[in-house]
């Protein structure tokens, strides 16, 4: 391993548990009886369903569209009939449910016509971005950020493209298998991206213990014309594959707090995303499946499956021989950054890279949280150089502003602090909630400011209208007094005379009545 330009503080050397799932080739999971497509988008709103109950759809049909969202459209991943559009649990850290389009598959797996292939050596960057949106490409590393939006975001020139194959989280092996089996697609995608971004340097990072993946990349590199791509091994130290940590390792640069990597001229893409980009461009393929690692002591035959999006987790477990007797907990993602879900009926969505079924008692069940003894182990382990114990102190006391002063928002939720805490305090859980609270406070402030602006604008408009009305009235009056038309003058004269007569008769009546 060559010396890298940078290193990151903290982190942990964790047992990988990768060999559970990375021994056999990626296998197609098959078509489940039902597919579920959550409509919830990243901004919290629902995408508009473009189908109704009873409609027949085919593989690749657009069934819901982003309404003014960055999120790309949602495609059906097999053919069948829409049987319901209703609320259903989805894979989400907060355990929320979403409106879902539920499709009963017909087993025929008929597709609509594929998108036309792009010329990957000459297509314009704009046409690629359009294609990525159209093909539903989002980040497959776990965050699920729309790729077209990510590539478009860079106002500053991008000089470095980083392909993230450093799968640092224990148990997860989908990128490892992808690199071993489809290294060429990844390199093709890298070449395409480098050309469209116009960047000088392209790096692919794999962890030091992913030897076979590294060999596969090297082989694909020498087979094709990919000498401009550097394949780099990074230490197997969690979280080397965290976006910010990987950038730090490979470039020695830090992404400024609150900014995106593009701010320092770097774009980071997960290797699976890059392979999907290539397939969307070169073959017109829509992103309707992904590789999912199904693993853990609670699964009979852990392995990597090629899974149609929308497939319920339970179906995947079945394909892996079912649960073992000791199956205990269900985690989406890995043991460090993943989150528990309460049902295996929830479907696989694009960011779901692994399903971990833990076994009871392994690792030893963690006792209840104890008081923080401020030992500082969390601060030593934090790759972002935060002080988790101080953050915890403030978030626990609901002092959100103080927590923000301690850089709450710079927490990458990697879970290192959780792992080393001698008191087993669920720190990241606490921080996630605090972040959420801060976000909703911000939203409330924004919407209050918005409402005030609207109110003030309305007031101003009303005052203006009032002024306009008065002005108009004045103008009318002035125009009447001045040079009104003779007809009106006559009419006014008549009215005046009439009024005068009436007054006279009224006056005489009163005098007559006077005794």
């Amino acid at each position: 391993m060559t010396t890298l330009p940078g290193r990151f503080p903290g982190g942990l050397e964790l047992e990988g548990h990768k060999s559970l799932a990375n021994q056999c080739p990626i296998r197609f999971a098959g078509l489940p009886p039902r597919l579920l497509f959550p409509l919830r988008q990243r901004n919290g709103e629902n995408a508009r369903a473009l189908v109704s109950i009873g409609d027949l759809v085919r593989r690749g049909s657009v069934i819901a569209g982003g309404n003014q969202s960055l999120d790309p459209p949602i495609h059906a991943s097999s053919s069948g009939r829409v049987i319901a559009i209703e609320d259903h649990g989805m894979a989400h850290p907060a355990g929320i449910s979403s409106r879902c389009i539920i499709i009963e598959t017909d087993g025929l797996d008929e597709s609509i016509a594929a998108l036309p292939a792009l010329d990957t050596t000459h297509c314009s960057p704009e046409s690629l971005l359009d294609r990525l949106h159209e093909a539903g490409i989002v980040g497959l590393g776990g965050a699920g950020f729309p790729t077209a939006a990510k590539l478009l975001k860079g106002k500053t020139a991008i000089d470095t493209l980083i392909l993230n194959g450093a799968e640092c989280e224990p148990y997860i092996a989908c990128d490892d298998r992808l690199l071993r089996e489809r290294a060429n697609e990844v390199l093709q995608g890298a070449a395409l991206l480098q050309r469209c971004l116009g960047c000088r340097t392209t790096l692919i990072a794999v962890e030091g213990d992913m030897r076979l993946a590294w060999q596969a990349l090297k082989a694909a590199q020498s087979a094709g014309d990919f000498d401009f791509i550097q394949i780099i091994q990074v230490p197997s130290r969690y979280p080397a594959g965290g976006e910010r940590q990987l950038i730090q390792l490979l470039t020695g640069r830090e992404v400024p707090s609150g900014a995106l990597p593009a701010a320092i001229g770097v774009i980071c893409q997960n290797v699976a995303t890059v392979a999907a980009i290539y397939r969307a461009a070169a073959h017109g393929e829509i992103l309707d499946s992904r590789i999912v690692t199904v693993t853990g002591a609670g699964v009979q035959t852990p392995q990597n499956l090629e899974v149609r999006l929308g497939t319920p987790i339970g179906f995947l477990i079945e394909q892996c021989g079912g649960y073992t007797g000791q199956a205990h907990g269900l985690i989406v993602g890995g043991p460090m950054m993943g989150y528990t879900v309460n049902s295996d009926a929830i479907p696989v969505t694009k960011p779901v890279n692994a399903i971990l079924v833990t076994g009871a008692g392994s690792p030893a069940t963690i006792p209840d949280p104890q008081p923080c003894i401020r030992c500082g182990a969390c601060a030593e382990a934090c790759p972002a150089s935060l002080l988790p114990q101080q953050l915890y102190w403030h978030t626990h006391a609901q002092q959100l502003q103080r927590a923000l002063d301690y850089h709450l928002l710079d927490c990458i939720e990697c879970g290192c602090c959780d792992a080393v805490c001698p008191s087993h305090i669920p720190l990241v859980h606490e921080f996630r909630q605090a972040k959420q609270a801060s976000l909703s406070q911000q939203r409330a402030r924004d919407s209050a400011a918005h409402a005030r602006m609207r109110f003030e604008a309305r007031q101003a408009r009303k005052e203006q209208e009032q002024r306009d009305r008065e002005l108009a009235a004045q103008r009318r009056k002035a125009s009447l007094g001045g040079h009104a038309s003779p007809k009106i003058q006559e009419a006014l004269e008549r009215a005046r005379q009439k009024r005068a007569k009436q007054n006279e008769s009224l006056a005489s009546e009163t005098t007559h009545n006077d005794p």
Partner: protein
Amino acid sequence: MTHNPLPVERRFTHDLSSRVTAGHQVRDVMWAVIAALVPGLLALIWQSGPGVLVQCSLAVASALIGESMALKLRSRPARPSLNDLSAMVTAILLGLSVPGLAPWWVITLGTLFAILLGKQVYGGLGCNPFNPAMVGYAILLVSFPQEMTHWPAEPVGLGETLHAIFGEMDSHRPDALAMATPLDASRTPPAMGHSTATPGGLVPASHSDSWVNLGYLLGGLWLLRRKLIDGRISAGVLAGLTACALGFYLEDSSRYPSPAFHLFSGATMLAAFFIATDPVSAATTPRGRWIYAAGIGVLIYVIRTWGGYPDGVAFAVLLMNLTAPTLDHFTRPRAYGHPR
């Protein structure tokens, strides 16, 4: 419409128990601290007899009773707090610090003060701003200077020990049982006719204090090796003390004892590896810990040299405990992505 057979949904509970753990547990840390005190304890027994064992037992018993009572008053479950063994560590540290022949009520009162006023009134483990053992020690030292400053000059048998501890309060104590410590002697100017305990030499072999300190050093190094305490704090305390001692020693070696004397006298090693390293009351940031520890080292020297107490550890630690929140505030590390 006929539906395909659906797999039966399996439900799971949300629990965090399957997370990775890569660290120690509080209870294990406390056990290790107790184990690491054993070499020093043995040296202490060798130096002054089994009194220290009696003191430690009394302390542990009072601590457990005091903590249970406080938890009951606070309507908190007793078991988790007693199980973390932190009260036991506090008690043993105090038991090691009081003179072996001090009457039973001294250590009992001290431990109760430590647990109740040093820890539980603030909300128990993790919330106390001061080192509980040092709170107890300081109260005892200020209140009962007579009982707290007289150490047996040579090992005392068990019978005599028990008699001294549990006997009548005004029972006659043979003068041979009590002597001034070398630290007391060192404070007295040489012109007065006394000789300082260490005219140079690495270890003041004249007094078995140094063996006790070696014992604590040994245990402390083992804790460091297991990464159970922060080496910055231990190194900082020793560095602060050594720097002061060296400066004055070089200036006038006839008036001021050598750094080696300071390092291996009194409670230096106990402070550096077992007392200042209590994370709850220490600063938490890396730089803050350096400053905190060096401050303790300097204060130990100052109190020893010019203060009126035999050893400065307790007050040095308590004074620096006061600064910990401020140190933490001003020594925050630069977080990722923030300007240098």
